[in-house]
């Protein structure tokens, strides 16, 4: 009885903490890295005062946010107002349950992993909408409206991209999808090559779904102050912030898993040396590769933000519906042909 309890309850909770706690710390460091990178791109220094190289800046900000007063606007809906940040955060964290970090390291090796991810990312929009409505503020409501329309539009493009991956991999399980990208041609066995347009569309949709620049009209500082979270302060705002950045890191990980071979090494099949474990991973693949890939993808978010001006709202809609979705639909058929005629090798020597 006690053994079962430990196996079914205690260990999963420990595993969940092993994912969420480093994730939250990663968010803090990612915020610091974002400010540093954008600073360098603007020929500034970025945060440099607190701790060595300003490394502790993010933690100072967290402490500042936590001890600030949480303000409830007049006539705001109290229950929904405080519920909204949690509704934004829960799906952002829950989606990490099915992410495989290496061939063995996965919390839940669910068969319908990709569907679960789609379900979780589509739930995140409720936090934003409810925040906008419960704040009893025009700016917040406008931000929520924009965000809802944008997330729904780009979810379609994202879903079609996932369909292409599913067609090639033949599975909804994320571990199987990564294994389907194994082969003897190194990084040319990954899905980014046969699915190159889809890879680009997936990442653009990911940027739009997380409401990041250049698709950040939901925040639109120059038009609607800060959008849906304009009335939030202190820890409630911090939770929105955490959810947004956790989602960014999630999209980076997903792009790495679905299109860049997850934990597989870019040198797979090229080197067959027999070496000790601490150096072997360079060609046999390990979680380190996944983290490197995800880091590069997340860097793109920051690069976009420092480079592109914000899209106009109608331009965002046109890009989503009239450019990305048609290309993705065509590529679903192309992927079907690739699979049917065997133009790509799936998971050779996995």
């Amino acid at each position, binding site marked *: 009885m006690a053994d079962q309890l430990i196996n079914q309850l205690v260990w999963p909770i420990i595993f969940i903490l092993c994912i969420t706690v480093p994730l939250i710390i990663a968010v803090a460091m990612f915020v610091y890295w974002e400010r540093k990178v954008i600073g360098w791109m603007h020929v500034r220094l970025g945060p440099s005062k607190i701790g060595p190289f300003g490394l502790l800046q993010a933690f100072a900000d967290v402490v500042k946010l936590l001890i600030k007063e949480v303000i409830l606007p007049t006539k705001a809906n109290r229950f929904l107002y405080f519920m909204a940040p949690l509704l934004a955060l829960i799906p952002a964290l829950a989606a990490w349950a099915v992410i495989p970090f290496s061939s063995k390291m996965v919390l839940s090796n669910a068969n*319908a992993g990709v569907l679960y991810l789609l379900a979780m990312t589509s*739930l995140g929009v*409720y936090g934003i909408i409810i925040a906008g409505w419960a704040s009893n503020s025009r700016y917040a409501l406008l931000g929520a409206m924009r965000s809802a329309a944008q997330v729904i539009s780009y979810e379609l493009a994202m879903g079609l991209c996932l369909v292409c991956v599913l067609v090639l991999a033949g599975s909804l399980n994320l571990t199987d999808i990564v294994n389907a990208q194994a082969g003897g041609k190194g990084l040319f066995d990954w899905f980014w090559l046969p699915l190159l347009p889809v890879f680009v569309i997936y990442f653009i949709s990911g940027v739009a779904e997380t409401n990041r620049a250049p698709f950040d009209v939901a925040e639109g500082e120059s038009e609607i102050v800060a959008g849906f979270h304009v009335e939030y302060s202190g820890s409630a705002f911090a939770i929105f912030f955490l959810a947004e950045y956790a989602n960014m890191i999630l999209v980076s990980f997903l792009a790495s898993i679905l299109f860049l071979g997850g934990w597989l090494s870019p040198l797979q099949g090229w080197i067959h040396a027999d070496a000790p474990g601490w150096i072997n991973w360079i060609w046999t693949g390990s979680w380190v590769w996944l983290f490197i890939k995800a880091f590069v993808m997340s860097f793109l978010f920051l690069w976009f933000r420092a480079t592109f001006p914000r899209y106009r709202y109608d331009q965002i809609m046109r890009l989503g519906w009239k450019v990305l979705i048609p290309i993705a639909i065509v590529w679903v058929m192309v992927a079907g042909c690739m699979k049917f005629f065997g133009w790509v090798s799936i998971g050779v020597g996995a």
Partner: protein
Amino acid sequence: MNPQLFQLICFYAFGFVTVAAALSVITLKNTVHAVLALVLTFFSAACLWMLIDAEFLALALIVVYVGAVMVLFLFVVMMLDIDQEKMREGFVKFLPVGLIVAAAMLVEMLGLIGVRAMHAQVMGANPATAAGLSNTAWLGQALYTKFLLPFEIAALILTVGVVAAVALTLRERGDARYESASQQVKVNPRDRVRIVKMAAERPVDETPAPPQESTP
């Protein structure tokens, strides 16, 4: 704790949430709250389906209804300016009609369930587990082989519905101003901005400049 007991506890917990949320959909006075209760109903119904290994249906319910349909619904309801008092006025007037509709639906549902219970045997084993496949894979194989024609017809009907919805709402208004996307894309920067080449500095006079004020 054995798995069956745990499953049973989960079933009752999700079932209770489903029923409670469904009841609050029709009892809550605030329309936005009612829509959110409906979202909760869908979500816990999806959890119930998950318990009987119908993972594809459960996740599709969340993706389609919770993630898209209800968001748009919420979108509309939030924009409405509903007078709560006026909404309650018609309660007595519409009560008889409501009761008749409720009774008819109850009879239909009982009839359907009763007929099923008389004719069908106890449900067999889960066909997906019997075939040794995951629920999604089994459903996909069944839809694309055994039920291909009904599936295609359903897709066709949905497409017709989408086209009809667009055709009904797409009306050209005479006084509306549209931006032509193709014109915007074709714009050449040289038509808008003229870049003038000029020296970065003016040539300095030979005479020494007057002492400048020091800037703070």
